């Protein structure tokens, strides 16, 4: 369900992007987002659009449903970091990979206690998925 809503929000943002938002406006819009610590925009309009979709997910969908992700960082934060560090193409691949490998990850990645959310989560940062091609 959440995935579907994310897809819908992405399409919605594409539509919005066609009508009004320039890359600069979108950048200022996304800069207000409170949930991600590292603020890095750039890598072109597609990356900005993807980050905008994450913004909508974090502020309008996740706020209603609550954070349910069993991983740390949460999928949206992970995705945001992926787009910031690797740009649109690799960021997208990493995001879709993350959404697909959630179920069996606990067998190969460490489980850590998250003080903020007060529960045990699977630690699966960006480096955990890029270690084999990026030293």
């Amino acid at each position, binding site marked *: 369900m959440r995935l579907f809503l994310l897809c819908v929000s992405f399409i919605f943002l594409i539509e919005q992007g066609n009508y009004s938002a320039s890359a600069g406006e979108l950048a200022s819009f996304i800069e207000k987002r409170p949930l991600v610590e590292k603020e890095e925009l750039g890598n072109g309009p597609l990356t900005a659009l993807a980050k905008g979709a994450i913004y909508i997910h974090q502020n309008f969908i996740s706020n209603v449903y609550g954070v349910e992700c069993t991983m740390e960082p949460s999928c949206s934060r992970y995705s945001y970091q992926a787009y910031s560090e690797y740009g649109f193409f690799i960021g*997208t*691949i990493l995001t*879709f990979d993350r959404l*697909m490998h959630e179920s*069996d990850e606990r067998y190969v990645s460490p489980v850590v206690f998250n003080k903020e959310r007060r529960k045990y989560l699977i630690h699966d940062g960006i480096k955990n*998925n890029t270690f084999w091609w990026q030293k």
Partner: protein
Amino acid sequence: MVMMLSLYNPCQASVLEEENQKAFIDYLFQKKYYSQAIIESERLLFNYPESRHKHYLLILIGDCYAFGGDEQTAHKKYQEFISENPDSPLLPTVYLRVGKLFADSRNYKAAISYFKKIPTNIFSSDNEIKKAKTWILLLTLLDEGANEAKGKSKELSLDNDNYIQDMFKSYDSLVFKSPKIAGTLSAILPGAGQLYLDRNRDALTAFILNGLFIWGIVESFDKGNTATGIILSVFEVGWYGGNIYSAVNGAYKHNRKLKDSFKNRMSIQLNIGANNATIPSLRLVYFFD
């Protein structure tokens, strides 16, 4: 009164106090009260800057950080020790510790460079030299594979050692997964690579998501909904690429986990802890040139 004063020996009291403090620090360390052990060690070093336990305590402070989970500070403390005490008889044990920290963080090349320093140090004991050589072999095995490690075992004259033989046998019994096979399988049929990696639920997720999106694309174009078809295709490219990446990534993670657990199992016998640090003492070393 004069007789009683003559019995009082402040030097002896000081030594006793120092020994008591050191014993208390050891007690704290054994009880895993690492932060208190650090404070007490600093206190002893402040009160007795020339203490005979100085080197031992400096290493113990590093150990407290390492065992307490602050590997970065432990690294810093060990490096400080190496640079400030280049002639310390405890230097080999610090090299072992630094090597172990690098090995734990999977930086095998750096770890090997530290283990290689141990046999060349005149203060190294036979036990430390053997540990260092075994670590070098273990890390070469994990980093470069069995053939390289077997070649190196001959160089280090450890090819007949029982422990090393067991290590090679145990390594050969590990079942690694091929990232290439996993990626190819997932490219042919989404989810097949994950199934090869025994990630059954991930396989099901990849298969269903890709299947649904491909079905949606076909239906959309069939019914003339070109825009929907294009949007779904864009997402399907992401799912398909993510599915292949997930399979390859999963194979690397599987292999990494196998190697880590193998390293942990093997390193139990190569345990490097504070108990290995001995009090500096006089040693006689012969050189035959």
